């Protein structure tokens, strides 16, 4: 996972304020939070000398194949549906404490991030995932509980 400093290194570093932010560093921070896109920096897109850096930054933010909005990928060939991640996922527990939080079947599937269907874990309602939105954190509840490394964030 990249960080704001690395992104800053690839930006023009001219503090031209065309993006609406006070400095290139500020732009890097909001870029990191995915509030703005690389295209929101006009010099980066327009000036040929930044072409290489623009491509690099775009690649970082290009959604990977099969990845969900939060970057969550389930490797379906590895997952065997033990449901550890479903029970350990903090939003799942908060939204359905007596169902999945207690190890049982979901009683409130519309608010759950992870459920097991046909023996494989499925990601849904990503708005509830702690890696989503403004106050996102790098929660790894589903990754550390997976015995086969079937869940990955990109």
């Amino acid at each position: 996972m990249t960080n704001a400093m690395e992104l800053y290194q690839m930006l023009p570093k001219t503090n031209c304020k065309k993006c609406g932010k006070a400095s290139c560093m500020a732009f890097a921070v909001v870029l990191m939070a995915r509030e703005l896109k690389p295209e929101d920096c006009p010099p980066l897109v327009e000036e040929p000398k930044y072409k290489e850096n623009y491509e690099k930054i775009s690649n970082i933010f290009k959604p990977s194949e099969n990845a969900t909005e939060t970057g969550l990928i389930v490797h379906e060939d590895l997952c065997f549906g033990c449901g550890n991640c479903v029970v350990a996922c903090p939003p799942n527990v908060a939204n359905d404490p007596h169902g999945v939080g207690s190890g049982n079947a979901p009683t409130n599937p519309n608010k759950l991030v992870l459920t097991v269907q046909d023996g494989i874990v499925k990601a849904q309602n990503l708005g509830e995932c702690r890696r989503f939105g403004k106050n996102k954190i790098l929660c790894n509840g589903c990754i550390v509980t997976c015995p086969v490394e079937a869940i990955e964030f990109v």
Partner: protein
Amino acid sequence: MENNYHVCTGCALLCDDIEVGSEKNKINKVFTACRIGMAHMKEGKGEAIFRVDNKSVDEATAINEAVTILRNAKKPLIFGLGASTSETQKIAIKLAKKINATLDDNSSFCLGGVVETLIKNEMKTCTLDDVRNKADVIIYWGTDPSDSHPRLLSKYSYFPRGKEKQRGWEEERTAIAVDVRKSHTAKISGNYFFQIPPKGDEEFIDAVIAGLSGKLPKTSYNYPPKKLLELANILKGAKFGVIFVGCGLIYSLESLESLSRLMKVLNEKANIHLMAMVGNYNSMGFNENLFAETGYLNSVKFENGIVKHGPEYSIVESLKAKTVDAALIVDSDPFSILPRSIVKNLQEIPVVSIDPYETLTSRHSKVYINTAISGVEAGGTATRMDRVKVSFEPVIEANRPSDEAILKKIMEAL
């Protein structure tokens, strides 16, 4: 969502919170079940198959042939039943009595010894619900539930919030794995994975006992004493501990004496329970039913009303010594699970196989009767690995007869 839950009979956990979607009497969607359960639930299909000498016949012919084989046999063997309902098991026990058969199941070469101590209440045990609600220290010893009972960690033991364990696995539970290899369960246990060499369990138990009594734990394979003392300390502090015992531990021990010694020492200092990681969904039920009937768990021979018991009546020994002359295999696949040197003797005698699935055994049988999958196409009752009785209804309508119906017909014809 409709709360219409079904019981999964894929393994001995008997998960009772499975939802299914079906269309035209075929299950096409399974919720909450693991991959084993999903495959098991979706398997229900097709018409019944009856075969004699690998040629399709009708039901009556197949049953007649099976009856003839059993009638002509002087020393028949009935084996399997771990994946049958309790009702089927009871009929099989009656049948064994009637035809003076040797009766055995998988437990004779798996966890029979431990199960016996649990059924006779010689070791402290508890239910899986207790584990969920109270357990703070959970040990998986010689077993990999992540692969064999996938939902054991998520539904009952480690991850769920329980009544007295509201803060969950991060803060209130410790999972420990003792194994010869870094299994999937060991990966979950993280730093509390204790890797020991094969056959090292006995010494490891002694070392833990030494650690518990404040002595320096020593092993011939130089296991770091610091780690052993750490384990002993965790165990000492357990308010509600449970040890899940798998075949890995049992195969490594000469006798169960060291395990019961460990349990005794542990329970002087803490509160530790034992549970056997029974594989087949109703293996525990078979052991209980046979125990209620004869006082033994497995490896019995009925002889005109007298019950004989001993290792010589287990499937392995009786096949090795060729003391059986026909076999009725119910819901089991000895051709796949037993070593070739033993199974080749099974090839020499006529075999009747009653099974919902095509197996290696069914292909090598003289008579094969394809039955309904209990728990999916047929209802009944079963005993979970923690000895809790669970009853279940069929999920879909069966096109095939149940094991129970077939065994009843064989019984009547005899």
